């Protein structure tokens, strides 16, 4: 629902980092998005298409999104398990309810690639 806003934050972070690293054009960005984050990959792609017009990106820049399943870890018995529909935080072994979320909340820029102004020597 707020993917445009998330994309704006992403572009701001990338723009700062690119300046810092003397990168002129970005051609590839990789995001990691957990299933518990409220961001939908399709909507993120759509938002990226809008922001791609920005000078920061090459016109054929690609956004790669790696989705992460929601996984919990039981604090009673230590079992790690997938959390069904983001809803059932119940340990399948001991039925424990004290469950830590170990994956699924990710929403971060993993890495990006870009070109600096220098031409390759060879």
């Amino acid at each position, binding site marked *: *629902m*707020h993917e445009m*806003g*998330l994309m704006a*934050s*992403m572009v*701001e*972070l*990338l723009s700062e*980092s*690119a300046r810092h*690293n003397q*990168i002129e054009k970005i*051609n590839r960005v990789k*995001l990691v998005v957990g299933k*518990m*984050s*409220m*961001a939908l990959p399709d909507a993120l792609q759509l938002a990226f298409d809008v922001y791609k017009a920005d000078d920061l990106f090459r016109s054929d820049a690609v956004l790669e999104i790696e989705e992460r399943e929601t996984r919990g870890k039981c604090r009673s018995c230590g079992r790690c398990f997938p959390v069904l*529909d*983001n*809803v*059932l*935080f*119940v340990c399948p072994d001991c039925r424990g*309810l*004290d469950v830590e979320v170990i994956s699924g909340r990710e*929403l*971060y*820029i*993993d*890495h*990006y*690639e*870009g*070109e*600096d102004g*220098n*031409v*390759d020597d060879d």
Partner: protein
Amino acid sequence: MTIKVELQTPILARNEETAEEIRYLCLENNIFLVNIMSSPGAGKTTLLEKALGYLSRELRTAVIEGDIATTRDADRISAQGVEAVQLNTHGACHLDARMVYQALQKLEYSQLDLILIENIGNLVCPAEFNLGEDLRVVLLSTTEGNDKIVKYPVMFRDAHMLVLNKVDLLPYTDFSKEEMEQDLAGLNPRMEIFYVSARLEQGVKEWADRLIELVKQSLKEHGMLGTS
């Protein structure tokens, strides 16, 4: 030349930083910050209208009103004699930490014990944005149906407190309290639940009393900070 940069940075890194600033500001000034979230029409403003009488008798209270547009809600709060700051997001579906930080600057916060933030009516986006709050309250109304809990699990997993509003309408809805409690047992077993009818002022005092208790507990724990 192609350069690869391992950034490993959360997209909401800036929001987290500002939320930390808010948390520190509140700690320093002995302020308890509450983030109240629900879908539109669940009754956030009505609950606040009815609860403010109890709250402001015990605590110096103010409200930050988030709305996409208009000052109607802030006007309703001000009518209760409580200071209210209106935040208009102009279309944005949630409040972020920066907006709350700006709103705080408009309040005499050193003179306050409790600030209630009424978030934008939406069960999706506000769940993602840390506002530096001490307590997250989600309001659900019986007319929305109990399936909202499993449909918006992140919101209900992260909240500390659930206020079920419009309980006076229970007989006219398919809302199942049993299913709700069952779903919450798997999703958020520590959730405190309050049953209220804000309109009829049922259960409102109990909720307000619990808030007052939490604020006083927190003041006792952090009481040494900010005083010399």
